[in-house]
């Protein structure tokens, strides 16, 4: 490779890397934990899905009955979005299609859109429902740590920043970061291309620091490359795909965005006419959904839509995702007319899958790592943490390469402060996460605002402390020490405040709760190992 190209790759890699590193670390760290999102929810709520899977039944009839106590349900549309590996569901209830029942929608109040909360007039409702506890709660009450980390990994919390650019600010930043990440990966690969074979097994841990960081960066970078490349691409697709879809819909669909989403099977815009004639028939929704589930063996129902409730033209649409073992790509959809019990259309989850299903399944399954059970997610977690290590070592190389005598003092000062701040923010994340997990158990019934406060304020305080101490070695050592203590306290807090000691969870078959406890014990032990290594190194000096 000629020197000019090498330099170009080198500089584009360095610049794109240092711009995104801190945010990318947050994305990787929170994202790695999000593989265990459902387990974290079960852990926080002390309600195990795995232990009760066979016992709890999703009883839609009961839910509709209890809703009819406070609403007139006639003529409404219902959408149930079932959460995976959980008994929870989001319920979206529209106003009635029957104009004699529905109240006139009031004038919309101007308000900021927040996350999934939507502006609705009073007669419609959007809430979550727990089939196990038979409780409804609004979004902020049911918000949990799993949701928090999941949303943090695409920077949803940044959406609150009042910068109006027509699209949620946090998502756009996350999309930009992940596109630059893709760019940095490609330039990094080219940069390292000539040495990729010769240096594959090179690791010189007893050399000077810069070589150690470089070796870590390239070795883990090369091993993790396919994994990270896949995440960069699928990440862009999942978060900012409107960048592609908007021009496509303008040119190919003459600006009709609903049509493009329908063609890509993201959304179902079909409407069913309201007849104003009552339905003279009892309908058992619970049984119906169970029947559909049995029809496609192994498939998991993801959405249940009820149109024109109790009208003669009432329809039920059930959508399901096949189990990845039966059919990797695919989506089932069944439209059922209640009046005469006829199946209007059916696309089986297990046998038919279109080309679009294949692409979408590829993107989703690869990104979420949900195709091979827990072992795959553990591997994903480890590879994700490896990504964090690559980022950290990248920052350190960047600093050490510029920490020379021929660099002017003001530049060195700036470089040090950049690295200092980035390291403080990044390394304090693990202890802060463990700390928030403990607080979840200490607090009684924590809500969205509690999680926000405890997580972000403790992160701020710890970062400021580390920044103020102005020593990267100290940041490293103390954050590792805090991680040992706090991670170990997580399962203990779960035992003391929730009664879920490890052996209790084990006996109750609550493996999802157990997973989180064991995860933190392992993190604590890893930190301990790192800490002892640091001590040993210091003693030598």
């Amino acid at each position, binding site marked *: 490779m000629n020197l000019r190209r090498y330099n170009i790759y080198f500089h584009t890699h360095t610049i794109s890397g240092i711009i995104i590193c801190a945010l990318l670390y947050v994305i990787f760290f929170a994202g790695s934990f999000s593989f265990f999102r459902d387990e974290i929810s079960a852990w926080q709520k002390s309600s195990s899905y795995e232990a009760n899977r066979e016992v709890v039944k999703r009883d839609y009839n009961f839910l509709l009955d209890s809703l009819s106590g406070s609403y007139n349900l006639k003529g409404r549309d219902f959408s149930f979005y079932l959460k995976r590996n959980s008994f929870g569901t989001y319920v979206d209830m529209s106003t009635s299609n029957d104009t004699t029942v529905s109240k006139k929608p009031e004038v919309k109040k101007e308000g900021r859109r927040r996350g999934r909360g939507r502006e609705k007039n009073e007669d419609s409702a959007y809430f979550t429902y727990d089939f196990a506890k038979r409780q409804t709660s609004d979004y902020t009450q049911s918000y949990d740590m799993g949701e928090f980390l999941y949303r943090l990994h695409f920077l949803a919390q940044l959406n609150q920043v009042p910068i109006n650019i027509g699209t949620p600010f946090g998502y756009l930043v996350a999309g930009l970061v992940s596109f630059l990440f893709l760019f940095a990966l490609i330039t990094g690969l080219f940069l390292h291309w000539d040495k990729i074979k010769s240096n594959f097994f090179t690791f010189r841990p007893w050399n000077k620091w810069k070589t150690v960081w470089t070796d870590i960066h390239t070795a883990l970078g090369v091993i993790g490359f396919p994994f990270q490349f896949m995440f960069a691409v699928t990440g862009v697709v999942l978060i900012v795909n409107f960048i*592609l879809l908007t021009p496509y819909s303008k040119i190919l669909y003459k600006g009709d965005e609903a049509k493009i989403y329908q063609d890509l099977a993201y959304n179902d815009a079909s409407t069913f006419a309201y007849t104003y004639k009552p339905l003279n028939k009892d309908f058992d929704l619970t049984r119906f959904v169970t029947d559909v589930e049995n029809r496609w063996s192994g498939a998991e129902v993801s959405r249940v839509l009820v149109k024109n409730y109790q009208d003669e033209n009432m329809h039920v649409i059930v959508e399901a995702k096949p189990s990845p073992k039966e059919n990797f790509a695919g989506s089932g959809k069944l439209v059922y007319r209640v009046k005469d019990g006829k199946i209007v259309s059916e696309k089986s989850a297990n046998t038919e899958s279109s080309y679009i299903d294949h692409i979408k399944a590829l993107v989703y399954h690869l990104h979420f790592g949900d195709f091979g059970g827990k072992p795959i997610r553990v591997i994903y977690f480890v590879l994700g943490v490896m990504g964090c290590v690559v980022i950290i070592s990248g920052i350190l190389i960047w600093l050490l390469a510029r920490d020379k005598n021929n660099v002017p003092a003001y530049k060195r000062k700036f470089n040090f402060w950049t690295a200092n701040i980035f390291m403080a923010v990044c390394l304090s994340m693990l202890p802060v996460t463990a700390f928030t997990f403990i607080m979840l158990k200490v607090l009684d019934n924590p809500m969205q605002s509690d999680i926000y406060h405890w997580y972000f304020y403790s992160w701020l305080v710890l970062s400021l402390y580390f920044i103020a101490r102005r020593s990267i070695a100290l940041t490293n050592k103390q954050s590792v020490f805090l991680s040992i203590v706090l991670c170990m306290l997580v399962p203990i807090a779960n035992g003391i405040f929730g009664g879920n000691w490890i052996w209790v969870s084990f006996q109750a078959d609550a493996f999802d709760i157990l997973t989180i406890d064991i995860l933190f014990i392992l993190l604590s032990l890893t930190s301990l190992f790192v800490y002892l290594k640091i001590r040993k190194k210091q003693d030598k000096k």
Partner: protein
Amino acid sequence: MMSFHLCLTFVFPKENVIATSFITGYILWAFLLLWAFVAENVWKVWLTYIVLSLLLLTPLLFNLSS
């Protein structure tokens, strides 16, 4: 990148091309960005990109007018 995939829509069903471009589009885009850095002469890159876009868009422009 856009024009390349738009051109493909005349050969293949458009929704399939759109779905494919979710993956190929962004990778191609990143490489086009990189090439702008690597190239010796930036004006040449500009020229190539513009000519390529127009060339690939010809079927589309033609189609709209007819």
